């Protein structure tokens, strides 16, 4: 019998932090005081928080054991659709920890921080080049924060033209965060149905676009993994109606060096540096969501902006049309510098190659699995492919069952039940850093699971079998919330 990637192994139980420790232990040094004790008004004194006292060894074992219950990209393939779980180069973490940079204070005069400002200035330029747009702000701390910044620009733009608009078009193939980001700026989302081929139909857009509509938020490639082939016409219609076109660039990993987003007609695009530009996802952040705009929207970008003049790099504050500040300082700089390192190591040629291989890998999986899983849109895909569980319904096996069973084979499940436009969606994004050998193993595992679904569905219903815990009771968690211990 062939060896399956996953196997059982020794992991250890570990209680909650406050279920261990002894009063008086310490996990880090507090230096002895070299100044006299000062008086303090007892009116303000508290009793101090009820934290457990733990030794350094207690802490190290605690978190090491916890880490062993986790699965990351370094552990194995993590084909979570729309999240671009590519390999995160180690050198980038080392670069971010450069002492002069890691210890730099964000409010010192510009002349004392030329290194960090130069990195930001150059990164702005690289991201402009990669997207084809003209100007960039690095402040937004994540994709949804970039979307919010984009919607603030929409709002400022229309107000500046003397006509606030109240609606925004959002296709059913856009990212889930889009409606909430628009709503924060008082824009009411108008859903747009994609066509039978999974892409936008310009006629539908023409019908919906009116003088109340601020514009459209398009995810391109969309969440079905398809390039919006009519994007230029869609943009033309929206522009003709006085609107702006926002591009959710979370899926930029598919089209670097291929598409020019300005030529597509996009006015604003956010990028997720933790996706396309390989910065580690950290178990849910920190990320970074820079926003790129075309020239005529540059004046609205968040303040301050890094600019360069004959004296060097400086922060420009005097920007009366700016939407304002969106981050306390300069964004998640520690993430920006990792993306900077990545782009410098890759160069234009390898970034393009990364996109090509990401698309190749997704199409390869699509071709290999389309006999086993239902493929609702059978056409060439970009960086991800979307299947469904339709073929498994007759065995009473669901997407969730197959996803959980993948864990027993040593894979993180794909994104499931998203996009909503496909019922029981299984959204697979392998990324370019998986080799053919690894893809073949994954495909083989999925085929085996599909066979099990026919022959032994119970094993899927009860999966996962090899994880530290079995399926968890999420209903009870929500009905009787226990949010602190």
């Amino acid at each position, binding site marked *: 019998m062939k060896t399956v990637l996953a196997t059982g192994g020794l992991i250890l139980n570990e209680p909650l*932090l406050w279920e261990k420790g002894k009063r008086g232990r310490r996990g*880090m040094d*507090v230096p002895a*005081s070299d100044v006299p*004790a*000062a008086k*303090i008004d007892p009116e303000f004194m508290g009793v101090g*928080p009820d*934290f457990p006292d*733990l030794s350094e060894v207690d802490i*190290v074992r605690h978190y*090491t054991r916890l880490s062993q*219950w*986790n*699965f*990351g*990209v370094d552990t194995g393939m993590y084909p979570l659709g729309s999240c671009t779980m590519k390999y995160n180069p180690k*050198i980038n973490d080392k670069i971010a920890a450069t002492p*002069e*940079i*890691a210890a730099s*204070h964000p409010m010192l005069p510009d002349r004392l*921080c030329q290194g*960090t400002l130069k990195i930001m200035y150059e990164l702005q330029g690289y991201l402009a080049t*990669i997207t084809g747009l003209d100007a960039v702000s690095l402040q937004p*701390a994540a994709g*949804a924060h970039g979307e919010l910044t984009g*919607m*603030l620009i929409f709002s400022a733009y229309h107000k500046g033209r003397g006509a606030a608009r109240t609606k925004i078009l959002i296709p059913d193939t856009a990212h889930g965060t889009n409606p*909430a980001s628009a709503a*924060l*700026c008082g824009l009411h989302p108008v859903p747009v149905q994609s066509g039978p081929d999974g892409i936008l139909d310009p006629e539908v857009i023409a019908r919906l676009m009116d003088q109340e509509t601020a514009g459209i938020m398009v995810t391109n490639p969309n969440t079905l993994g398809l390039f919006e*082939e009519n994007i230029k016409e869609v943009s033309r219609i929206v522009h003709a109606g006085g609107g702006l076109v926002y591009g959710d660039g979370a899926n930029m990993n598919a089209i670097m060096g291929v598409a020019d987003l300005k*030529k*597509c007609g996009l006015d604003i695009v956010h990028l997720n540096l933790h996706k396309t530009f390989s910065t*580690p*996802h*950290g178990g*849910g*952040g*920190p990320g970074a969501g820079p926003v790129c705009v075309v020239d005529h929207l540059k004046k609205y970008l968040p303040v301050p902006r890094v600019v360069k003049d004959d004296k060097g790099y400086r922060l420009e504050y005097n920007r009366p049309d700016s939407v304002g*500040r969106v*981050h306390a300082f*300069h964004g*998640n*700089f520690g*993430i920006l510098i990792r993306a900077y390192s990545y782009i410098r*190591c*890759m160069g234009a040629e390898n970034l393009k190659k990364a996109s090509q291989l990401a698309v190749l*890998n997704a199409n390869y999986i699509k071709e290999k699995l389309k006999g086993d899983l239902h493929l609702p849109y059978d056409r060439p895909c970009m960086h991800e492919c979307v299947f469904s569980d339709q073929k498994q319904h007759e065995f009473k096996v669901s997407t969730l069952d197959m996803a959980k069973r993948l864990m027993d084979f040593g894979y993180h499940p794909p994104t499931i039940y998203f996009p909503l436009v496909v019922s029981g969606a299984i959204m697979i994004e392998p990324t*370019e850093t*998986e080799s*053919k050998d690894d893809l073949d193993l994954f495909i083989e595992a999925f085929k085996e699971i599909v066979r099990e679904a026919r022959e032994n569905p119970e094993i899927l219903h*009860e999966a996962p079998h090899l994880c530290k815990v079995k399926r968890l*009771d*999420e209903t*009870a*968690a929500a009905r009787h*919330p226990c949010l602190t*211990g």
Partner: protein
Amino acid sequence: MRYLPHTSEEIETMLRVVGVDSLNDLFSSVPEACRRDGEMDLPLPMTEWELNDHVRGLAALMDIKPDYKVLIGAGSYDHHIPAIIPALTSRSEFLTAYTPYQPEMAQGTLQGIFEYQTLTARLLGMDVANASIYDGASALAEALLMGIRISKKRKKVAISSAVHPHYRQVARTYFRPTEFELLELPVLENGRTDLSGLAGLGELAAVAIQSPNFFGVIEDLPAAAGAIHSRDAVFITCFTEPLAYGLLKNPGSCGADIVCGEGQSFGIPRSFGGPGLGMFACLEQYVRSMPGRLIGQTTDLEGRRGFVLTLSTREQHIRREKATSNICTNQGLCAMTVGMYMAALGGTGIRELARLNYDKAEYFKAGLVKAGAKICFDSPTFNEFVVEFAENFKPVAKRLLKKKIVAGLDLGGYYPNLKEKYLFCVTETVSREIIDTLVAEVKK
């Protein structure tokens, strides 16, 4: 390229499976009119050692070297980070995972963040803390929006002018496209927020006060709670220096309804201002109005304890445009870091460390007063305070810089009436010797 594993033979084989002739043919769905004209104009690829050299060059452009002492806090603090913190946070099972959507494979992240939520709630005297917001500034903006949700139809929020100026700017950005009004409350002679204007305000949803505030001044939170609750408004407190609560009364015990702020102080490097951590906590009755992710405890099919993302019906991916916030990716690893730091300090350690910060600041203030400077606000402070010098401080600051001391932030850029008044900060990383050197230089 070492991150790209495909051999040319493999590429050929895969192209055949896909049914196209070349890598370029994979992009047939991208219309000609949407394509780039030529290749991207980026610098040539660097090897790892070339990159190391290049970044050494960039580091050399930083005038403030790691052995300098920066006596400026203002929302970004220099505290000692024990070696265990980077060692544990760089474990790749934490670092290279994503949002724990599949809890069976993410119990490490989930338990770690559950512990962070618990220790944060204990620190702030709140019932519940979420899994994080981007930073202190966006946490405050989200708290104000939450205050509006709680108060239903009210239209105004007020925020103290002694809140970090950048946080106020971010709050204004979030409020600009809304129908709600954001007012600022003035500061009294003693450096505390003047709440007397609240009495005349109608439609008041929430009031936000920072303590210790931007001037380092400890606000009278119980009095503020009385004034704000008497207007039936939500009382929000915020912070930039959570270490203060090792020594001071926590905001919950002073009557706060929502507490938010920046957690960078707890084990996260300053890193030019980010990533930091938006800490966010509230009373239990408001939890369903809360933004951001929450981790909850539950059991698995066999009755064992486990953790999951919960109450997600508040969130953007379920609730769409009616969600409590649009936040999705947050600051997961930073929350984990801060959880580790709070655990490493412990109840005993946090008290000692907070006391030490307080004592150093008092010693520093006394020294400056003896040297002829004036402490601008006579209210108690924690580890920051505002100083006015008898003579022009700029030449002194220049001399200090030569001695590797970065002294004080001129507040004139943030508060025109506080021009040439300086905000100073001392933490445990600043020795008495450094303080004495600075004081001696002021005396000269």
